[in-house]
């Protein structure tokens, strides 16, 4: 009998280390001791289950979820879409995907953001959705602007959308950021450059997707998200294999 087994261990060489001095805030917020590695137990291989009753079907439409009736936010209208897959390339269905972002001018609707670019009265900047049976998700939004931040004096974040994904186990929990193909700020951003692996950075870059654009309406970017995969365990004596 084939049973689900442990999740593949996280490849910490593709993720950023905790201490990345170029990103200054990490200096005092990074543990100094090594992480203690845990063999999976029930608390790691389980995680919260969300259903369609938890969210509103229009929560994935940032063009409308905070706009006055008949109005839309200012900015480049985009579709951000893709699939949530695991490392075995299997779709992750019925999982919660949440996003948040700045508006077209690079300003967040957050009281701690005091950048002089104005708030857009028709743009909130957050959305959420649940993947379908094929792991597919989509959002409609505006492309966010770059914004300055107090790290080095002249640091600017590339345009990005923050992405939060659950998967089906608490040890798949992931927050990352989606960048946009061709942005010259990507290679000089200290937060992007916390990632030691160039291919992993490339994987965070959404690609222009002309096939998914809506002509004369909305341009599209494709962003697939990969969560940790899982061993399948053959037979009850735990002879492992896939």
């Amino acid at each position, binding site marked *: 009998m084939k049973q689900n087994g442990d999740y593949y261990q996280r490849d910490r060489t593709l993720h950023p280390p*905790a201490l990345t001095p170029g990103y200054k805030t*990490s200096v005092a917020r990074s543990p100094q001791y090594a992480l203690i590695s845990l063999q999976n137990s029930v608390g790691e291989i389980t*995680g919260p289950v969300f259903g369609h009753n938890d969210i509103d079907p229009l929560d994935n439409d940032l063009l409308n979820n905070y706009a006055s009736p008949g109005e839309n936010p200012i900015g480049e209208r985009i579709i951000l879409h893709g699939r949530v897959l695991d*490392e075995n390339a299997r779709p992750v269905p019925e999982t919660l995907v*949440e996003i948040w972002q700045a508006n077209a001018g690079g300003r967040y609707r957050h009281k701690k953001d005091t950048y002089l670019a104005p708030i857009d009265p028709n743009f909130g900047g957050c959305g959420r959705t649940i993947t379908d049976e094929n792991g597919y998700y989509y959002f409609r939004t505006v492309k966010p602007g770059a914004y300055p931040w107090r790290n080095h004096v002249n640091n600017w974040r590339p345009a990005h959308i923050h992405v939060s994904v659950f998967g089906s186990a608490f040890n798949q929990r992931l*927050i990352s950021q989606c960048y946009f193909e061709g942005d010259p700020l990507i290679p000089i951003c200290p937060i992007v450059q916390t990632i030691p692996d160039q291919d992993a950075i490339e994987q965070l870059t959404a690609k222009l997707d002309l096939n998914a654009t809506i002509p004369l309406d909305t341009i599209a970017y494709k962003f697939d998200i990969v969560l940790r995969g899982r061993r399948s365990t053959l037979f009850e004596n735990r002879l492992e294999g896939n």
Partner: protein
Amino acid sequence: MPQELQYLRETASQTAGPYVHIGLAPGAAGFDIYKQELGHDIVGPNAKGERIRVEGRVIDGTGSPVKDVLLEVWQANAQGIYAHPEGGGEVEDGFRGWGRVITDFETGEWSFETVKPGPTGGGNVGTQAPHINLWLVARGINVGLNTRMYFSDEAAANAKDPVLNMIEWEARRPTLIATRTEQDGLAVYRFDIRLQGENETVFFDV
């Protein structure tokens, strides 16, 4: 080592940044956009077991409270069952076992109300003392940090817990144990998380 086998690679983590609240806890941050915000009700009205409150702060390497952290809670019910198909059984109607809290922007204090979980079972690891799984993200944290909170009034179970016992340095184990007090008849557990330095909390690679 590069693999020749056809596996995908996990998407790399990035910090949640300073504005995580507008995305994951907009209502808690004073921004009204969703009809229903997730993560406020961990156990629902029907949960059996002792009602408790958990509170604490996250403290950085300079001793300062981290005022922009977001924590997620994942726990079993009082019978030790997680609300998941592989969680070991059925849970009470309305019990999710998951919650999400942010800190007070002025003080860095966070808190949540829940029920005390029961010991969780077996598998490869053996019976585990009651604990709450925590995951925290913030600006300056590149990959979300996993830790566990155990209970000071479960000393016997804690002494046999396979995860606590796996931590070779005994002096570090108490960083995972919340201190029980009572306030107005309610059990309150204090759990400060130290990201770095003296008494640094144990974090796990799960």
